């Protein structure tokens, strides 16, 4: 017998050791997320995937599925929390969609669309953040960084290069580069690295590829992120 739990009343099968997020994705059910990526170890930092697990709140990407547990995700209260978290991400950085190459293909923007965010609501921080354009093929635009650490995980776990890290604490936390100069050009990062293309926002982007897809044909122009498997993270459908 396959073990199951319920997610918003729907019966979800799972294999021992799978997280709620993994089991839900395999069953084709979307739980909003930004720092989660099926190829990498869970990080549990963005908290967007917070679900109600039998009366307690927990991240779907870090909590393991268990037999007969009742999980709620699509509730008004949880989506209001997710919207507020997304709004905070917007005001904490400098996310200027009209001038961003990633617009239309950005997961932060797409999650905000999914949650029906009409305004970032909170007072904008307009933080002063450095841009690193030193690398010949890759731009590091810290104004758009949401500290999901996907590039950190990709560079460390897949590329084996350890190019990125997070320095500082709290509001001073920032993406740093592992070279004596702190510049991307002085690392061995290559444009073909997993770390160079895993960024869910426009913080790490390939140079000379901006605005190549016209408005109307981009990933999320007509499709909600819940319906669009992100490139490279197609959900492993179970037979």
């Amino acid at each position: 017998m396959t073990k199951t739990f319920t997610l918003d009343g729907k019966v979800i099968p799972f294999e021992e050791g799978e997280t709620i997020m993994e089991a839900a994705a395999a069953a084709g059910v979307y739980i909003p997320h930004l720092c989660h990526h099926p190829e990498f170890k869970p990080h549990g930092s963005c908290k967007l995937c917070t679900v109600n697990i039998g009366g307690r709140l927990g991240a779907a990407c870090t909590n393991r599925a268990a037999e007969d547990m009742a999980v709620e995700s699509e509730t008004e209260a949880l989506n209001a929390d997710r919207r507020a978290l997304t709004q905070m991400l917007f005001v904490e950085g400098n996310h200027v969609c009209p001038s961003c190459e990633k617009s239309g293909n950005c997961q932060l923007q797409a999650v905000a669309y999914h949650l029906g965010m009409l305004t970032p609501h909170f007072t904008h921080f307009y933080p002063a953040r450095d841009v690193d354009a030193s690398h010949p093929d890759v731009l590091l635009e810290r104004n758009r960084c949401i500290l999901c650490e996907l590039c950190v995980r990709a560079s460390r776990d897949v590329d084996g290069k350890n190019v990125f890290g997070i320095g500082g604490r709290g509001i001073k936390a920032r993406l740093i580069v592992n070279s004596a100069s702190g510049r991307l050009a002085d690392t061995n990062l290559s444009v073909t690295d997993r770390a160079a293309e895993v960024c869910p926002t426009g913080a790490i982007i390939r140079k000379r590829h901006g605005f190549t897809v016209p408005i109307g044909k981009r990933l999320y122009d007509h499709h909600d992120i819940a319906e669009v498997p992100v490139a490279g993270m197609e959900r492993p459908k179970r037979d």
Partner: protein
Amino acid sequence: MTEPKKLKVATCSLAGCFGCHMSLLDIDEKLFELVKVVEFDRSPITDIKHCGPCDIGIVEGGVCNAENVHVLKEFRRNCRILVAMGACAITGGIPAWRNNVDLWDCFQEVYSYGIGLENGQIPNDPELPLPFDKVHPINEVVRIDYFLPGCPPPADAIWKFLTDLAAGREPKLDYDMLHYD
């Protein structure tokens, strides 16, 4: 039978590019339908300089100087429903890129060192509004009732939004009409 009373609408552009107003005009022939149900008060379309009591006020652009604040407060005082239209009104937008550049450096770059400038000088007429050191979204200055995102919001989104409001419905945008760019 008397015709139903028209809704009074006022619009203005603060620190914006008038792109949102262009998008409003882009509803094309639906403008004829629009003017059957609304009457424009203060607006770049009418060139009326100050608004009286209105049902709906639509504000494009963020707040970048003292005059913007006066206009915005006039709108808030007079408009029953105040709408922030477009990325700049909602987030500060492109003009807010200058928020991390010293204002004096900004002026020098534009008026003294700009390409092709000869004998450039920084404007200093007392009639010019006092610029702020940072650009702000309008909801940081007055209470806003509705937000209509986009850069600009598509004409269809503006049409849907206004007709919803005019009909007394809660405005709701379909997925295709919700864009931040």
